[in-house]
Every structure is written in C-alpha cells, then in structure tokens.
C-alpha cells in the first residue's frame, strides 16, 4: 500500500493522516474541556441543603400525627412559663412517609438522620427505632393567618430539604411524584417579588394529608387559594386540590 492509503491494521499511519487525526483529537479534548466549564458556568447555584447521610442521632420528643407528622422536642427556654418546642417533620427511609398514627401524642425516643435547609429541619427516622416513653399529648393551637391566593411550586419535602440537590423543578419532577406517592409530605414553595422564599406545608381543607390528589401538579408553576396558618415556625396551607390552576400550559 502506498503512503496515502491507510487501513487501521497497517503498522504505521501516513504522516498527513496522522496530523489530521491529531488535530481532531485535540479539538475533541478542547470541546470536552469547554463543555465541562460551560456546564458549570451555566448551572444555577445549588441550595445550601444537607442530608447527614450515615450520621444517625438520638432524638426525644412528642409525636404529633396531624396531616404532617412532627416530632416536638422541648426547648430549654420557656414562654411565660410554658414549654416551647422545636418541630421536626418526620419521614421514613427511601421514598416513604413516616406512619405516625400509632405514636400520636406519645413521648418517644427515636433514632434518625437530620435533613436541613436553612432553618427548616427534618428527621429521617430509622426503621423500628421508635420507643414509646409515655403518653404526652400536647395541645397546640394553630394561629390562623387568613385566606391567600398564592403562586408557587409543589415539591416533596424530603428531597427539597436536602436529600437531593437540586430537589425541585422539572428535572426532579418524577422523583417528587415518587416521593409524594410514598407519603412524603408536600411543601408549597412561594417566592415573593424580592426573591424571599417561604415554605408552606400543604394540607387538605380539613387538615388531612394531600398527596395522591396533587401528583399531576408537582414541580411546575401553579396558583391556588387557601387558608394559611402557623404552628411554631412552620406555615400550613390548607387547599382544595381540585382548584389548583396551572400557570403555564
């Protein structure tokens, strides 16, 4: 074979061909470096959210099994002599909600992993780690803040608070649906004109969990009216799921 005709099984590549191949390989490497750099320049900042995977801690408090299950841990400071509580929403491992009904009003010890984003904390409860100490019902009234029409996005609270990052918007939609199917409590994320973000726990108008009813509206801009209330630092948004409106069709 002459210099200008080359097949891969021949011992030596002609110089002109080798030069073209080298240019191609260098161009491919430059494209790869460019893609890696552009991909990170172009991505939005990731939220400061944390899942302390592998770090299991002990918690003690009282479980409330309303629409969203919480562990109420008594704080050291009191309010007018009355106890104050830090509220930790509870979830189970994987894409599963925590079945809190059998522990409602019970003071318990449990093991769990912290998930947190800014000031909002959650506990992923280790299976079969809950030990009942005593009955300890806590009477706590929600403060009604009135009726509101809000625009925002429904997310699954577990991923949003830190198990995944990013844990919201279109690429995360399917995961959010899987989590809500499994009973993870939904959060409604609202951003005001200044960019401040509020997170509200979504409930039905009667205060029950709403999961299956909202699966079709997850991770997209929606508008909904409902009553907003507060317990401790947590906001709750009671809605009628049939009245959810899509902002973008």
């Amino acid at each position, binding site marked *: 074979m002459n210099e200008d005709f080359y097949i891969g099984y021949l011992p030596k590549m002609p110089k002109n061909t080798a030069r073209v*191949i080298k240019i191609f*390989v260098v161009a491919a490497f430059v494209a790869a470096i460019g893609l890696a750099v552009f991909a990170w320049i172009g991505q939005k900042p990731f939220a*400061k959210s944390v899942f302390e995977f592998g770090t299991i801690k002990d918690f003690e408090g009282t479980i409330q099994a309303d629409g969203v299950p919480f562990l109420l841990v008594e704080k050291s400071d009191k309010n007018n002599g009355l106890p104050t509580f830090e509220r930790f929403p509870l979830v189970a491992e994987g894409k599963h909600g925590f079945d809190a009904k059998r522990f409602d009003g019970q003071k318990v010890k449990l093991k769990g992993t912290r998930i947190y984003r800014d000031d909002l904390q959650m506990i992923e409860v280790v299976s079969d780690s809950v030990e009942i100490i005593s009955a300890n019902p806590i009477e706590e009234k929600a403060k009604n803040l009135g009726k509101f029409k809000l625009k925002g996005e429904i997310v699954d609270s577990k991923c949003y608070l830190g198990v995944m*990052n990013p844990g919201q918007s279109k690429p995360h939609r399917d995961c959010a649906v*899987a989590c809500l199917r499994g009973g993870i409590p939904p959060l409604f994320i609202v951003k005001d004109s200044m960019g401040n973000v509020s997170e509200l726990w979504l409930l039905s108008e009667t205060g029950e969990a709403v999961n299956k009813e909202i699966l079709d509206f997850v991770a*997209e801009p929606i508008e909904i009216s409902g009553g907003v209330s507060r317990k401790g630092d947590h906001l709750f948004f009671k809605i009628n799921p049939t009245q959810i409106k899509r902002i973008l069709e």
Partner: protein
Amino acid sequence: MSEKYVAISWNRQKKIYDIILISGVAGYLLLFIGLGASFQPNATIETLLIRGFGTCAILLLHIVLIIGPLCRLSPKFLPLLYNRRHLGVTTFFIGAVHGGLSIFQFHALGVINPFVSVLTSNTRFSSIADFPFQVLGLIALVILFLMAVTSHDFWLKNLTAPVWKTLHILVYVAYALLIAHVLLGVLQAETAPILSISLGFGMFLVVGLHLIAAFKETNLDKEISSNDDFVEACSVSEIPEKRACIRTISGERVAIFKYDGKISAVSNVCQHQNGPLGEGKIGDDGCITCPWHGFQYKPENGASPPPFTEKVPTFNVKIADGKVFVHKKSNKAGTFVEAARIE
C-alpha cells in the same frame, strides 16, 4: 478481516484508539466532577455523577456522529472510523451509567417498580414545558443498547448487512430523542444561554456536516443511461492506477478499477458495512481493499481471497476508443469476469 470470530482483533491502532478514548472519558469525568465540587460545593455527589456521565454521553454521541460525514469529505479521517464501534459501545456504557444512576436516584426506594415509575410518574405528553423527558432518554438508551450488543461482525453476518445497517441507522433516532431529552429536561430548569448555545453548536456540527457530505454524494448518484446494454462510464485515462472511479449505473454505484493494464468493475458496496470500495485501492496482493475496515475482494470475481467468503456483484466491461463501457446489469456476486485489457 478475520476468518474466525474473536471478541476484539487487537492491533496497534485499536490499542492507541482505546487508550485515548478511555483517558479522554476518565479525564472529562474527573474534570467535570472536580469543577462541580469546586464551584458548587452544595451539589450532591449523585448529581455530579448523573450530570457528568450525561454530558459525557452526549459529547461522545456527537463525536460518533460527525466521524461518518468527515470520512465522506476526506479519507484522512478514516482511522477514526476504523474503530468507531468502540466509541459507540463506550457511549452506550456512559449513557447507561447516567440512566442507571438517574433511575435509582429518582425512581428507586419508592412504592412502585422503578421502571414503572419512569413510565407513569409524568404522563403530560401534551405539554411541551412539562413533557416526560425521562421516557425519551430511556427509549434512546434501549436503542443504544441494541446497537452496542450487535456491534460485532458476528451479528453483522448473522443479522445480514441490510438488517444490521437498518438497526444501526437508528442511532439518528436515538440522537433526536436525546436532544429532546436534554431540551425538555434539564434545559427547562437550567436556562443559561451558554448551555443552549453549547447544545446548538453540537447539533449545527452534526447536521451541517451531514448536509455537506450528502451534497458531495449527490454528484456520485448522477445516473448514466444508455439504450445499449453497455453504457459509457468514463475514459481509461480518468482512472488512476490501482484506483477506481465510481459511477451510478441502473441505480447502483459501480467501482471501475484500473490495474496492471486491465479494467474490472464491481459493486461499490462492501459486504462488511457498505463501505465504498471505489474509494479503496488495489494493493500489491492484487486485491481491492475497502478503505473503511480493510475487507478485500479480487477485482475479477468480486470474491474475498480464501479462507474468507464475502462476495460482491461484478460487471462485464469493455474498452473502445479509450472509453470504458460497463454492462447495465450486474452479475451474481462472486461471478468471474474477464478483465478488459487496455490496448
């Protein structure tokens, strides 16, 4: 060419090719994950891996797809084609890691089977903004899987070249699905123009090079017709020694070779992967060598030298007044035809 099937017939070029490929992929993933961990320290390792493997697979697929038209434009790119199947199989594996991690991350550990979850979590097929983009990626991955597992001469032989070629043409369907997967997926959330521009540049390169190559090929497909059984194809002086000119006669591309004072004509289509035999050369062994992967045929009978069994159709030829005339009808593959002597 190999007379028996082995997993890979290694040679020096294949080894160099694979070393560059593997180090390129490893280097890209390390760079991507390193940059991500530095610029976005809050990103989880799963997200870094999913996005790293995803972008790597898209980049590799673009490289796979531009090699074909580049080789049509210049034979100097042919060494890239020689071992392209390794690039294709690597693209599948990288894509499979992306898909596997995504399915585990987004669909496993729930109340339904992860694959059922992929297909049922989002059914808004009528919405562009909310289209279920993961299904598109899954279908593309299935196509790349079928291509990867049949990416061996054993399957080429047993499926037959037309079936194998049709299956592998599906790479363009997979490419379209993956572009839609990116456009309707991550680019719905990550809206920085630089990301769309990067993808657009890749598409421009793939589509543009294919169009330029196709335009070049249209000249080859200009049909030569005649009322006689023999059609005037070219002049003897047009054909370089040991090389061919390609003409389209009765809808078929014919490679007309000049060698050792003789002219022979065979089908232009190599039995291996439909490579253009007319762009090949007759070597010192007297065989036409396909420029793509080096499959060989005798010019007089279109048959591969023993022990190989590939055969291509031959054409009767004659020479008059310095012109080459080729019969309109091809002979059965492997039929001996006396070469026309150049006076």
